Every structure is written in structure tokens, then in C-alpha cells.
């Protein structure tokens, strides 16, 4: 039982490591222009993807219709545009979200 579980942990670790290393191993000698291009444009796109990914379980069809996520999310954008300080934006948005889900839309 425990041996099998240990093997599963090692398999999960090995596959995860392989996925993370694979592009570096394949493009070790010279980076093809296409991969360099993806390196330029993918980061901005993937951050956009991660934003949606984090919000994927937000329910917008019944109360509170995603209002806490929308309000706190806009607060993060506003703070970031205003102060350009990520730590402040994240703290501010999170505190607003916690107040909203605990006290305003419980």
C-alpha cells in the first residue's frame, strides 16, 4: 500500500519534471526563431489565460452573480494603474474580496 503510494508520488514528480525540462532539452543548442517568437508573445497571453483560469468556477447565473470577483478584480486593476505596486494591488484586492464574501454577500 505505502510502496505503491510512494511509487505514484515518484511517477507524478518524474512526469512533472519531464514536462518542465522537455522544451529546454529539445531546444538546447540553438533556439529556433519560431520558439523565440513564442517566448516573446506567449507570456502576456498565458497571464490572460491564468486570469480566466482562476475565475473559472465563478457562478454568474445566480446571486451574487460574480459581483465579489468583479468588484475585487476591478479594484486590483485600478490600484495597479494608480500606484504600479503589485503587492499593494494584490493585498488591497484580496482584503476587498474577503470583506465582500464574508460580510456583504455571505
Amino acid at each position, binding site marked *: 500500500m505505502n510502496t505503491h503510494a510512494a511509487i*505514484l508520488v515518484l511517477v507524478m514528480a518524474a512526469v512533472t519534471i519531464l514536462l518542465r525540462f522537455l522544451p529546454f532539452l529539445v531546444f538546447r543548442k540553438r533556439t529556433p526563431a519560431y520558439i523565440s517568437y*513564442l*517566448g516573446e508573445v506567449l*507570456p502576456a497571453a498565458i497571464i490572460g*489565460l491564468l486570469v480566466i483560469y482562476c*475565475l473559472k468556477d465563478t457562478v454568474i447565473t445566480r446571486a451574487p452573480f460574480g459581483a465579489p*470577483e468583479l468588484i475585487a478584480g476591478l479594484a486590483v486593476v485600478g490600484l495597479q494603474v494608480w500606484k504600479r505596486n503589485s503587492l499593494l494591488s494584490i493585498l488591497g484586492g484580496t482584503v476587498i474580496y474577503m470583506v465582500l464574501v464574508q460580510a456583504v454577500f455571505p
Partner: protein
Amino acid sequence: MEKSPEAERKPVIVRKAFLKSLPVMAGYVVLGIGFGILLRNAGYGVLWSVAMAVLIYAGSMQYVGIDLLAGGAGILTTILTTVMVNARHLFYSISMVDRYKNAGKYKPYMIFALTDETYSLLCDGETPDSEHADLYRFLVSLFNQLYWITGCLLGSLLGAVLPFSSAGIEFSMTALFIASFTEQWLRTKDHIPALTGLLATLLCLVVLGPENFLIPAMLLITLILTLLRGRLGRKAV
């Protein structure tokens, strides 16, 4: 700054890396605690929790891994599940191939530790000091994993006795990505990659639902950006 001796510059790099990693701290500790509690409830204690945080170090995969362990899954199932849950890391690595190219002794660990959150902190390419860029990236990666291990350890030790009045703190992860997205938007002129990521993912989520949209979204994004290569590529150079 250039004139100050090496010994005086390193602590500055350490401090800047720590400040950069701070936004991840709360999120990782909380998510790690959640993982530790669930894993403990499934019958696997502190050693398992820490071993998984050290060796696997992939948040969503570890959560999925609890079910695999508890259900005594087969090895092939475990391999396929891990590939599906973690395939997105291929894309993170592809976009870091150039940036991590000369990282030397720090490189293996930096690749190993390239999680969603570490990626979002480092993908803008900003570093306080170009000469110590690799040390800086290495330290941000390391601090993040230490937060994660701490969370997994705490969750496993405290179990269900934790007084959890912190509902909603998980939004810190979402806020981290929204802040990164906004900052990237403010710093770049061409917003087509960012909009592609946002809208293609939204489309896949609406069409395919929250369980199966992630990999199709990544493929769609790569396809669209590949088709736009002539247009965007010229501007990038």
C-alpha cells in the same frame, strides 16, 4: 551601484527577490495548508505532504494526486493524469528557453521550480540588476517553493483544528494574476497577445466548460499567435 563591491550587492538582490516573492506567500501558504489538510484526511501524514511539496511542487497536480493516492490508481493512469494536468508547463518552459539560457548552475532548479505563480512573477523579464538576473530569478523561485513547503507542512500538522476564518483569502492568487496582467498591459504597446490569451481562453471556457478548457485554450492561443506571426514578429524585433 556598479561600483559597490560584490559582497554588498548580493544582499540587495536577496532583499529584492524576497519583496518580489511576497505576493505569492499568502496564496501558497493558504493553498498549501488546504493541501496538507486534505492529504492528511486521506490518510497520508506530514512526511508525505512535505515529500510531495519538495518533489512534485505543482499545486493543482498535488490536489489531484490526493485522489490518485487514496484510490490506489495505476501507474499508467497516474502518468496520463499528470501529463494532462501539467501539460501547460510545456508552454511556460517554451517561453523561458531564451531567458533562462545562460543561468548556469541555477538553471536546473529554476526549470524545476517554474510553477504558474513563479512564471507570472518572472515572465516579464524585469530584474533589478542585469548582472545578477539569474541569482535573482533563482531566489524568487526558491522563496516561492519554501512558502509552498511551509503551507503543506502546516496543513498536515494542524489538520482540521485550524480556526479558518480567512474565507476568501484564496483570491490572492487571482489578484496576483490580474495585477501581472495589468502591469504587462501598461508596459507594452501591442496588446494583441494579451487579448488573445484572455479571449481565446474565455471562448474555450464557455464552449467546453471548466473541466476541459485549459489545454484546448493553450493550443488555440498558440495557433492564433502563430498565424499572427508575420504581423507581431516584425514589431517584436
